[in-house]
């Protein structure tokens, strides 16, 4: 029962570390429409959401995001418009850094103690949310995602 929670913690913990290094200039050719991401259901209006956008299953499972940002939390909802993505398939991971320390907190046994979620509200089923459940299409018209967290 514990193995998957360790894995979940590791997968999300990687998010905090990689956000600092993501600032790739957006691709110019074939730019897709804007992606509007709304985070809802926030019960503790403190800290920040740490968000990563991924373009492959491998990256989603613990690699680098193509886009990452930190979103201050001030109420039950927060949103962000992402531009500059190429058309294609993407998935989003987010954790709520409730205490604002920049990392995903875990308890003494490595189990996440801060809320996390993924695009399509992909569930944790015996492990972290899967790429298959979380991926969505970004077209020339863009995309919209409402992710419930907390």
């Amino acid at each position, binding site marked *: *029962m514990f193995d998957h929670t360790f894995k979940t913690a590791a997968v999300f913990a990687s998010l905090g570390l990689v956000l600092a290094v993501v600032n790739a200039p957006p691709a110019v050719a074939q730019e897709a429409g804007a992606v509007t991401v709304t985070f809802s259901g926030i019960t503790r209006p403190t800290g920040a959401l740490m968000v990563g956008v991924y373009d492959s299953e491998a990256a989603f499972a613990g690699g680098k995001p193509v886009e990452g940002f930190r979103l201050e939390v001030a109420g039950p909802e927060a949103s962000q418009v992402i531009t500059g993505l190429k058309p294609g398939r993407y998935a989003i991971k987010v954790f709520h850094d409730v205490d604002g320390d920049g990392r995903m907190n875990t308890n003494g046994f490595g*189990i996440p103690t801060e809320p996390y979620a993924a695009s399509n509200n992909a569930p944790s089923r015996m492990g972290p949310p899967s790429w298959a459940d979380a991926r969505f299409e970004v077209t020339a018209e863009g995309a919209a995602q409402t992710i419930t967290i907390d």
Partner: protein
Amino acid sequence: MDRRAFLTAAAAAGLAQVVTPEQVFARAAASQPAWSLAVADVAGDIPRQPLRRIHGRPPAGLAGTLYRNGPARFRRPGGDATHWFDGDGLVRAFRIGEQGASLEARFVDTFKRRQDTAAGAVITPGFGTLGSDRAVIGSADDTNAANTALLPIGGELLALWEAGSPYAVDPRTLETRGLKTFSPDLAHMPFLAHPRIEPNGRVWNLGLAGRRAIVWTLEPSGAVERTALIDLPRASYMHDFTATDRHLILVLQPLIQDRMTLPFVDALSWRPEEGTQVLVLDKDDLSKRRLYDLPAFFCFHLGDAWSEADGTLRFDACLDSTPQFAVHGARDLLVGKAGRNGVSLAMIALHPDGRAELNRTPLTAEFPRADPRRAGLARSKTIINTVRTEGRPLLRGVGVSDWRTGKADLFDYGPDQCAEELLFVARPGDDSELGGWLIGTSLNLKARATELHVFDAAHVADGPLCSWRAEVGLPVGFHGAWMGG
């Protein structure tokens, strides 16, 4: 087999499986033994109902509530729990006062229960239930059945499981307040169903994760006094531990978690050749530890421990020779099969010279309890469930075994009853060991009704001083707690 014969056989096998729900139901009903009521489903919460007094009179000065917990919903249309330990926790309140006695019961409103209810099937994995990959599991608490025991503390009733946090329940309404998080960094940390409570109200408990454990110390108010993480010599399955006034005693039986799989019981290997180890920790300094060796045995439950003048530590335990019941018997129960359960009372002594001693008795015994005013201190009496019937999985009697005299004072409820745990309630003004009453429930299979009994703790064999009967027969539960007043 040629292709044509194979297809014919396959078609016949397919046809054989075409039966109507009515046929299935009729077959199941015909094959269910009388004791199956002990693991039957309760459809929903039970509003407060008076209990009918069927025998004797309640002793003067006895007033309070016996809270009990146990699994009470195992089956759903789309799929069932396949292990006794995986039913939804039902908290029962047996209240005794001047107006008579009453029963009320309410399910703990767990994430697991909500998820299984929404799915119309038991999809959440558990101790011995595989579940489905449709289940959402963010942490072990999403599989928490809150079905094993109750700890009244800090004005709350904590419904305990073993691999997750407690659920807080309102002792007055039995309404679920939610998952108990002592502090943000302790969220989802496991809390065993058998905390050890010092006579001054301080609580010690463990939570296990393989070869690591958290040691909890709670103040009598319910606030966390301290927690510590410790390493263990092996990843034993541990349902219970015990304590003296100065030591924590962890029995590391050779039922070892050595792989990661679901359900949890399938991740355990029985390795009797490795024997049982007993780890003793100093409460004041958890780094001070001693390790003892004993022959292999399986146990769920231990009695309160104490130390003697020469430094010997003693505690009793309800032992079986193998984990057969935990692994198979408690699965078989849910499908009406009675497996072997050979649990009996034993005394374990840990001597200062490093020698450990195991003395088994032939007395059938489970659910050991003692006088809570002597927890961790010298005592001689152990309250038990006892009396086995051949071909029946559950016990039918209760009693007190006295280590000093070697005698047992037992009462047999009879072949139509399943006994449940007995607790001690002190008689006001009586400080002697077990000076007071024993209170507990049974399931009367013939009357199809749950009963509440009070015994004089010094005269169990005389039978109950008073018995009450409910209008409903609730499935047999696990552990409870008494709150006076």
